[in-house]
């Protein structure tokens, strides 16, 4: 039976067809494989080769130190110190929640952090950036770091990173300028300016650190390692050394800055100052009181400390009052009013006006400070003795002349109520009161009355709704002193290598030019000079024995509601060719001559290297 079945012709046509079909299938399959191989190996070979290289190479980042920040004489203001940070690497962290809790408990015990607080701190970091390490604690001692590294098996997922922390050898001196450094945030990550920055890298977040971040941040180095599929080190490939960021030289003079902050601290403890070169706009000092020690930020600031720095009751130390103050300026504003009155033709430098001691607008009586009557006087004298009534009249007239906005126009041109454009990102414009502004406020129901001539009268002597800061005042005074150029103040001077050789001079910003006749400017300057030197001048008593001749204006701004008056002083020195402008204010210093003028003298002493044996007492006629 087998044999019957098994007998067959060698190759039937039917079998031939079927064998051919099998051969055909093989042929097609081989063709498909060959084309696919051609595509993978010949056409896409380079791409896969790159992928294979990526596969085996792990880069271990070596953090680059940020550039140092130095003052105009090369004295270090901000540098770096190496420290240890305890971090968690997500790829090695236990996936199991209980294991992770055990790790948090152990770490918390080692680092003296409550495990719950640690988890609350770390888990959101890991969730936000799943492939980036999360920092548990900054600035850990070497002993703790070594212990952790030696007992790695107990702390699986935890690691110690060498990082550079910002260090501020002068503590609170200049604290408001430098700003803070922090990890790249989600918004910056998408910003093309941070293309070269890796997740987890620290970049400038505020202040100078933010403004000049692209110079200050260095380029991270990397150790390139060849690893196998398990991540084990196979061999070292090469190393790229980290490159420290560029050094930034500021125009700040450490001595001036220090003198300014000390002077402010000697007052009521809340105030600000600005020192600027009247020709170049270079800022030699810019300070705010109360201040803080920025070193606490580099460790990663505690929430409690941060809240304290923002607390109004403590004077909100983080606020930079020199550019964010927003104060009424008192009589220091008279320079603006004088300029506006002269340029809008309300008066000439010699137009006499009568000062009976008070001025009535509608049913409101505006009086001179101390109710003094100065009699008939022209602009120079009015500035010297600080006659309010003289300027009340100017304010009233400018309110009724033409569009009634001459004072606002000139104030704005001189930089009041707008950002000066200093190279600090946190500047606030303040407020220049206008009819439009107040009437809109009234319409919205946010105030009880519309604009009246009294508002302009108040503005003419820097009272009322005006909000300006010392830097804006410095810019306005500098414009009158330098021939009408409204400068953009700047702190950054040049970019240098680590030995202090210039790499790039930072571009001098263009100034806005105002057309003010020399005679008008000179009249104003003469008035200011008189105020600091002539008999009856508001600050003569403060500056009469000062070896450097100056011009300057006091200011006393009423804050109302039983609060102490704000004290102001703006000085131009040396006379008659002013090189610097110094603007100082103390929030509760009373009369300008009492508090702010002696502060200005201390700053000027530092500026001109004048040795003073004792601090000058304030005092003099009221302004």
């Amino acid at each position: 039976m087998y044999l019957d079945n098994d007998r067959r012709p060698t190759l039937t046509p039917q079998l031939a067809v079927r064998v051919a079909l099998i051969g055909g299938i093989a042929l097609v399959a081989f063709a498909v494989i060959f084309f696919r191989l051609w595509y993978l190996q010949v056409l896409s070979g380079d791409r896969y080769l790159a992928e294979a290289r990526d596969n085996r190479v792990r880069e271990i980042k070596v953090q680059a130190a940020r550039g140092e920040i130095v003052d105009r004489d090369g004295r270090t203001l901000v540098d770096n110190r190496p420290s240890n940070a305890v971090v968690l690497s997500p790829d090695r962290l236990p996936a199991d929640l209980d294991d992770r809790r055990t790790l948090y408990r152990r770490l918390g015990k080692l680092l003296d952090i409550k495990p719950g607080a640690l988890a609350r701190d770390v888990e959101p970091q890991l969730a936000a950036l799943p492939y980036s390490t999360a920092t548990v604690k900054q600035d850990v001692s070497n002993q703790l770091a070594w212990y952790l590294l030696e007992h790695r098996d107990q702390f699986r997922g935890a690691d110690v990173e060498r990082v550079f922390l910002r260090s501020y050898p002068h503590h609170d001196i200049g604290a408001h300028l430098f700003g803070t450094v922090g990890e790249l945030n989600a918004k910056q990550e998408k910003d093309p300016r941070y293309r070269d920055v890796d997740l987890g890298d620290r970049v400038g977040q505020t202040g100078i650190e933010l403004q000049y971040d692209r110079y200050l941040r260095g380029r991270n180095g990397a150790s390139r390692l060849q690893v196998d599929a398990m991540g084990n080190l196979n061999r070292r490939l090469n190393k790229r050394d980290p490159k420290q960021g560029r050094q930034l030289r500021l125009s700040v003079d450490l001595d001036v800055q220090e003198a300014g902050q000390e002077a402010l601290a000697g007052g009521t403890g809340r105030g600000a100052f600005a020192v600027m070169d009247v020709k170049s706009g270079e800022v030699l000092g810019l300070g705010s009181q109360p201040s803080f020690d920025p070193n606490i930020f580099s460790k990663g600031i505690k929430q409690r400390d941060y809240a304290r720095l923002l607390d109004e009751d403590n004077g909100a130390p983080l606020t930079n009052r020199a550019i964010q103050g927003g104060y009424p300026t008192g009589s220091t504003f008279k320079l603006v009013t004088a300029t506006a009155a002269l340029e809008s033709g309300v008066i000439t430098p010699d137009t006499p006006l009568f000062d009976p001691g008070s001025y009535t607008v509608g049913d409101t009586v505006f009086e001179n400070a101390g109710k003094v009557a100065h009699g008939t006087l022209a602009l120079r004298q009015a500035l010297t003795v600080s006659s309010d009534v003289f300027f009340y009249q100017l304010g009233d007239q400018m309110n009724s002349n033409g569009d009634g906005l001459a004072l606002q126009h000139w104030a704005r041109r001189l930089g009041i109520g707008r950002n000066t454009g200093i190279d600090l990102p946190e500047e606030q414009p303040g407020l220049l009161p206008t009819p439009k502004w107040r009437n809109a406020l009234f319409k919205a129901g946010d105030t009880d009355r519309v604009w009246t001539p009294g508002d302009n009268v108040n503005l003419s002597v820097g009272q009322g709704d005006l909000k300006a800061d010392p830097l804006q005042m410095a810019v306005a005074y500098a414009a009158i002193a330098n021939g009408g150029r409204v400068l953009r103040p700047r702190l950054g001077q040049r970019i240098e290598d680590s030995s202090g050789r210039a790499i790039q001079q930072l571009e001098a910003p263009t100034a806005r030019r105002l057309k003010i006749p020399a005679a008008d400017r000179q009249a104003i300057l003469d008035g200011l000079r008189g105020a600091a030197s002539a008999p009856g001048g508001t600050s003569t008593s403060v500056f009469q024995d000062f070896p450097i001749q100056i011009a300057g204006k006091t200011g006393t701004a009423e804050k109302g509601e039983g609060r102490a008056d704000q004290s102001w002083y703006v000085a131009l020195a040396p006379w008659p060719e002013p090189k610097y402008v110094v603007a100082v204010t103390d929030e509760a210093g009373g009369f300008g001559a009492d508090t702010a003028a002696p502060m200005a003298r201390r700053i000027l002493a530092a500026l001109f290297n004048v040795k003073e044996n004792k601090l000058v007492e304030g005092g003099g006629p009221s302004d």
Partner: protein
Amino acid sequence: MAASTPVTDFRDRGVRLLPLDPLLLLAALGLTAASLYIVGTATQDDIPGDPNYYVTRQALYAGVGILLMLIISRFDYSRLREWKIGIYGTMIGAILLVYALGFSARGSKRAIEIGFFNFQASELGKLLLVLSLSAFVVDRMRRLGDRETTSRIMLLTLIPAMLVIGQPDLGSGLVYLAIALAVLFVAGTKWTHFAALGVIAVAAVAIVLVAAPAAGVEVLKPYQVDRLTAFLNPTNNPKKEGYQINQSLTAIGSGGKTGRGDQATQTRLDFLPEHHTDFIFSVVGEELGFVGAALVLSLFALLIWRALRILTMSKNLYGALIAGGITAMLMFQVFVNVGMTIGIMPITGVPLPLMSYGGSSVLVTFMALGVMQSIYARARETATVKGL
């Protein structure tokens, strides 16, 4: 019985006179050489301190395999037809033995440990199935048109196929099915039967992959389903199933035209798992490039061409069916394995014949080639006798 007597006489008279197909032998030896080279380079760092661990074993398997091939080629395969029940029973028994004694490798129970050799019954089953199934078909040649014949053969195949799929060794199960279809096809089963089988196969796949999991019945283990579907979209799950495919594509692609030789980091640094077994073709692609891969494929093409030629030469139907089954077994494994490494076929755990490291696969493939040589030899002999 009467017809087989002169053949036996002939063999007894002069064993040395029996011819071998030289090209089939050449292809097999070429692939063995390639396998030894690739296994040698790919695994030199796998066992610390013993760079030649795998290559010496593979060489031993190949040596024994070649010996077995030569011995088997001297016997008349036609005799095996009488032992079909025994062969089929041995196959089922061996597979069941694995169930009873087998040890587990990565969750699969596939092998029995015999000394240092892991005996994989499902590999031997491939050859035993060809031999027994071909015999059953020859028995029913007169009723080949009956639906019953086709269903019986398929049933005989499904029993071992299901058993090995349950081990779980999906790849071997699919090879069994391919063998059965090829044997029926060469025998001349009606097209309508194949069409019906096709419909049933589609329905079965739909039930196993879609309907059964939806109803809560687990036919395939979840990892098997993942592996089967991963190739459709490897980037979907780059950590697990997709990882293997991606690493394989990267390995092959990075080989370029002429290969990376010693710089084949995908293999050497262990990014490509299973680089000496199921994914050895990826290593060929990475180390030797398009040129090397094409050479290896050419050897397989030569092998398949000669196998098909032997099919047509066979002196009897049994030989033709065996040749068809073995050809299908080789073709299926080559295409599924290579297709898997280049990302056009699912991962099914099918070795690359003669190339992949592994004693069972190498020995069984050589034994199958021994049977092929036997068919060739008998055919040539018959032709010579007729020619005389």
